[in-house]
């Protein structure tokens, strides 16, 4: 499914999409946070881009780890350690591999979610990126178990993530900065859930 070359291409695409959506994500964060989510991620992925050329000969896990480290050291805020750890943990489960398949990708998703939960100590339903990540992961696993092809598996994930984002509108935030707003956070979609969905869409579009 994916070798290092393809992964690097994917990361360029992800960076482009995040940069394109930076204002949108920041505006979402303005409503229930502090107007920086898109700015933060764009800063991080732009820096990731500059590191990619040097990674062409590396294994998948090295690229993922490096991406995670760059995100941790450039994004800041809550999403920096969260996305950064997610990528680093993702790397750890595909150690030494120079090509991965859809099975590996599902392991990567598990590890990434584990990383986010390790750092952020949140569960589903708290209006965070997890509300897109967990349902997406579940839907992809189900589609895979149902014998769907890579394209369909990823599409199932995107659909579930989109629903997850919709769902975040209906709930009160109890983790992160939006939690300070209490009831006032209702009606707004979570920026982190949105950025994850954008990221997953970019991946899905490539298969």
């Amino acid at each position, binding site marked *: 499914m994916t070798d290092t070359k393809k992964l690097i291409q994917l990361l360029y695409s992800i960076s482009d999409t995040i940069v394109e959506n930076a204002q949108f994500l*920041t*505006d979402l964060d*303005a*409503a*229930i*946070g*502090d*107007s*920086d989510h898109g*700015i*933060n991620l764009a*800063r991080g992925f732009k820096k990731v881009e500059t590191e990619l050329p040097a990674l062409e000969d590396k294994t998948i896990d090295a690229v993922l780890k490096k991406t995670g480290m760059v995100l*941790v*050291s*450039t*994004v*800041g*805020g*809550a*999403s*920096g*350690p*969260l996305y950064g750890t997610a990528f680093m943990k993702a790397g750890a489960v595909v150690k030494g591999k120079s090509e991965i398949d859809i099975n590996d990708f599902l392991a990567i998703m598990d590890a990434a979610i584990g990383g986010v939960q390790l*750092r*952020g100590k949140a569960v589903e339903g708290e209006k965070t990126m997890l509300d897109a990540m967990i349902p997406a992961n579940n839907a992809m696993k189900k589609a895979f178990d149902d014998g769907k092809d890579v394209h369909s598996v990823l599409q199932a994930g995107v659909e579930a993530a989109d629903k997850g984002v919709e769902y975040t509108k209906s709930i009160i935030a*109890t*983790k*992160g*900065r939006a*939690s*300070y*707003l*209490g009831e*006032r956070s209702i009606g707004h979609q979570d920026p982190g859930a949105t950025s994850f969905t954008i990221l997953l869409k970019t991946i899905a579009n490539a298969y």
Partner: protein
Amino acid sequence: MKKIINAVDQVENQMIEGLVKAYPEYVYRVEGSDVLARAHKKEGKVALVSGGGSGHEPAHAGYVGTGMLDAAVPGAVFTSPTPDQVYEAIQAVATEEGVLLVIKNYTGDVMNFEMAADMARDEGIKVDQVIVGDDVAVDGSLYTVGRRGIAGTVFVHKIAGAKAEAGASLEEVKAVAEKVIANVRSMSMAIKPCTVPAAGTPGFELADDEMEIGIGIHGEPGTHKEKLQEADQIVDQLLDKILADLDYTGSDVAVMINGCGGTPLMELFIVNNHVSDVLKEKNINVYRTFVGEYMTSIEMEGFSISLLKLDDEMKALLDATADTPAFKVL
């Protein structure tokens, strides 16, 4: 967005440079980082490190110097600094006696500082931390992420800083920091929002007759909007919340009337006039007052009130000499 800046992506860097060029006798910029450390590293004492997003000037770099912080780590505007930056700060000022991190309670700040502390501990540096959550506007119950750290944090810097300067151990410095945290409460409001330079639009909007109550320090909306009232009524509302949260009756308190960045001192003094009257009436004795800009949100117009209930130790430490760019006690 109307600001006196150059390129938006140069805001943080040029601000750090401008500060270091203004106050070389107090701070230097740690090579290749955004960290501002005390000009003359002081050995033989616990080092205090604090930080958070930029946009809170004079916090945190303005408090680096004798009797307060040893290093400040500014992140991007309203974005907590990354672990590697915090780690750089710890490394720059760490002593045998150890390092205390003063963290404001935000998910991002806590995660980034804790990751840095882990890195430092791996290198054999003694690191401990306190987390400040003084904002009574938000629910501090078990089911939330806890209260935010706002202007009351400056009292932690001052008092723990004085304790460290006096040569106390890491445990003692941490203990007095925890005591300040346990005894300080704050609450804020705004009449005009601020704009993160890179975002370009304000974090919330207010009509000409509206105010935002219970705001944080990151330009984010507060707990609710209301019709703008007279200064005395606003003070009553904020003080009610603060006094309901902690019993200050009969105690000596330190008062901080903190401007959010765009508020004229004129208004802060008018606020203090009523704060002082209400406290007197409630048999709370004002020991010392600080009126000014201590923990800002760029150009936001608004203010916070912080009340710190003092004991003799805290009084002595509050009165101890401090010499930093933005906080001086003679």
